[in-house]
C-alpha cells in the first residue's frame, strides 16, 4: 500500500509546486497559525487594553486598524482573535477526526446491526441544519469554550464517521487486506497497518474543509453572543458589537469580517488543493481548463 504512493511521490511533489491553491492556502493557514501562536508578541497592545479618549479612531499610525467603541486596538484584537478562533476550531475538529474515524472504521469493518443503527442515527443528525442544532445545543448547555468545542465536535463527527466507514468498506474486500487476513494478521494489525494509513489522505482533506466550516460556525455563534464570551476577542463577537457603529466606523466590522473570510478561504484552498493532488482526474480537468 505504501509502495505505489512512493513511486508517485515525485509526480505529486511536482503537482503540488504548480498548485496555486496550495501555495496561497498554505501561506494563509501558516499566517493564521503564526498569529494564533505568537499573538502576544506580534500584537502592538494587549487585546483588552483600553485607551481612554481614543474611542473609534480610524486606522492610522498609532492604531494600524483603528480602535473600537471602547478604545481598544483593533489590530491587536484581530491577531488575538486568531487564537480564539483556532482555539475552538482545531480541538473540535481533532476530536471529531479521532472520534469519527474510530466509529466509522469500526462500523465499516465489523458491520452488522450497530452499523445499520448508526447510519440511521447519522441520517437524522444530517437532517438538522448544523448551525441551528449548534445554537440549540449551546443554548441548552450554556455558552462556554468547552461546551462550544464539544458541541461542534459532536456535530462534525458524523461526517468523518461516514467517510471512514465508506472507505473501510471499499478497502476491506481488496486483495492486500484479504491476504493479510489469510496470513493470520490480527484485527488490530489489519486496521492499524492496512486500513488506517489508506484513510489518512481522505481524512486530511475533510479535516481542512471541516476546519473552514467550523471557523464559520464559531464566528456565527459568537456573532449571536453564544460563542466565546467577551472580553475575549472573538471575530464574530467583534463584528456583532461593531454593527452599532458600522455606518460611521466601518473598520469596526470590516477588520474582523475580513479576518473570518481569510481564515475560511485559507482552509478551503488548502482542502481543495489536497483533493486535487489526491485525485488526478480532478486535477486533470482543471489542468485542461486553467
Amino acid at each position, binding site marked *: 500500500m505504501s509502495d505505489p504512493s512512493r513511486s508517485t511521490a515525485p509526480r505529486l511533489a511536482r503537482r503540488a509546486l504548480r498548485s496555486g491553491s496550495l501555495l496561497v492556502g498554505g501561506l494563509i493557514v501558516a499566517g493564521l497559525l503564526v498569529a494564533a501562536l505568537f499573538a502576544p508578541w506580534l500584537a502592538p497592545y494587549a487585546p483588552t487594553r483600553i485607551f481612554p479618549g481614543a474611542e473609534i479612531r480610524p486606522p492610522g499610525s498609532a492604531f494600524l486598524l483603528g480602535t473600537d467603541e471602547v478604545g481598544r486596538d483593533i489590530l491587536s484584537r484581530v491577531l488575538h482573535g486568531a487564537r480564539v478562533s483556532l482555539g475552538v476550531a482545531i480541538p473540535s475538529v481533532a476530536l471529531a477526526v479521532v472520534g469519527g474515524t474510530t466509529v466509522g472504521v469500526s462500523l465499516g469493518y465489523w458491520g452488522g446491526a450497530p452499523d445499520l443503527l448508526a447510519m440511521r442515527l447519522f441520517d437524522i443528525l444530517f*437532517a438538522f441544519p448544523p448551525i441551528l442544532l449548534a445554537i440549540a445545543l449551546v443554548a441548552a448547555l450554556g455558552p462556554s469554550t468547552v461546551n462550544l468545542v464539544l458541541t461542534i465536535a459532536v456535530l462534525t463527527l458524523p461526517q468523518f464517521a461516514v467517510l471512514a466507514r465508506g472507505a473501510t468498506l471499499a478497502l476491506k474486500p481488496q486483495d492486500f487486506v484479504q491476504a493479510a487476513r489469510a496470513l493470520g494478521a490480527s484485527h488490530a494489525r489489519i486496521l492499524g497497518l492496512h486500513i488506517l494509513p489508506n484513510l489518512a489522505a481522505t481524512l486530511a482533506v475533510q479535516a481542512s474543509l471541516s476546519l473552514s466550516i467550523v471557523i464559520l460556525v464559531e464566528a456565527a455563534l459568537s456573532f449571536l453572543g453564544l460563542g466565546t464570551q467577551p472580553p475575549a476577542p472573538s471575530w464574530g463577537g467583534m463584528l456583532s458589537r461593531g454593527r452599532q457603529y458600522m455606518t460611521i466606523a466601518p473598520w469596526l466590522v470590516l477588520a474582523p469580517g475580513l479576518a473570518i473570510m481569510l481564515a475560511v478561504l485559507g482552509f478551503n484552498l488548502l482542502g481543495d488543493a489536497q483533493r486535487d493532488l489526491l485525485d488526478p482526474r480532478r486535477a486533470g480537468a482543471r489542468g485542461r481548463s486553467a
Partner: protein
Amino acid sequence: MATYVGKRLLLLIPTLLGVSVVAFLLIHLIPGDLVTILLGITAGQNEQTRQALIHALHLDRPLAVQYLLWLGDVLRGDLGHSLVSGFSVRDELARSYPVTLQLALMAMAIALAVGIPLGIFAATRAGRALDASTRVFSLLFISAPAFFIGTVVIIAGARYAPWLPTLGHVSFTESPARSLLTMLPAAASLGLAISAIIARFTRSSMLEVLGQDFVRTARAKGVADGVVVYKHTLRNALIPVVAMAGTQFVYLIGGAVIIEEVFALPGMGRLVVNAIYQRDYTMIQGAVLLLTSAAVLVNLAVDLLYHVIDRRILYA
C-alpha cells in the same frame, strides 16, 4: 417509481421521529433542576406554580412516557406555551415562519439565477479570464459568512444608496411588491454565498458532460455550438446541480436564522435568538422542531424531483 416514492415516504417516519427525539431531549440537556430553572424565568417560585409546571410538562412521569405524551401534544398541534410570555408557541411560530420561508425561497431563487448562468459561462469559456474571475468570485463568497456579506451590504447601502430600504420588514400579504423589495438585500446576502457554490458545481458538472462521447458526436455531426451547450449538455449537467441545490436548503434555513438578526427581520431566527436570551426553552424546542422538519421535507421533495428528472436512476 411508485415503490421508490413509497419507500422514501416510509423512511420519512423514522427520520421525523428521530428529529422529534432530539428536539425533546434538548430541554433535558439543560444542566441543573429543570423545574427550578424553568420557574426562575417565570413569575413565582411557590409550590402551586411548581406543581402546575411539573404537571404541564409531565415531569412526574418516566422520560419515555414524557416523550410520548409530548409527541401526542405535538401531533395534535400543541407545542406548549412560551415560558416567558405564556403565548402559544404554535401561534408565535405561525407568525414568524412565513418571513423565514420567504427569505429562504428568495435566497434560493437568487442563488440559482446567479449561480447557474455563471457556472455555464465559466465552463464554456474554461481557461479564459471569465472562468478565472468566476473561480475567484466563488472562492470569496464561499468563504465569506452571510452575516458579514449582509453587514457590508448595509454599510454600502447606507453610503451609496440611502434611498434603498435595507432594514425593516413589510409582510407579503400586506404588499407583495414592497415585501419582496425590502427583503431583497437580506435574500441577496444569503443567496450570493450559495450562488458561489452552485456556480462552481455547475461549472464542473458542465465540463464533465462536455467531455462525454455524445457531446463530441453532436459536435462532429455539425450541431450548432449553442444547441450543444444548452440542449445536449445543460440538461444533463443540471441534474446533479438540482440535487446539490436541494442539500443547500438545509444550510439556507440555518443561514436565514442568522441573517434575520443582521437585517432585523421578524422571522424564526429572531424568535430563536430572543428565546435563547430569555431562556425560553419551549420556544426554542418548537422552533428547532419546525425548522428541521421543514428541512427534512424539502430534502425529500428535492430527492423525488431528482428522480423525476433523471429517469436513468434505478429506483433501488
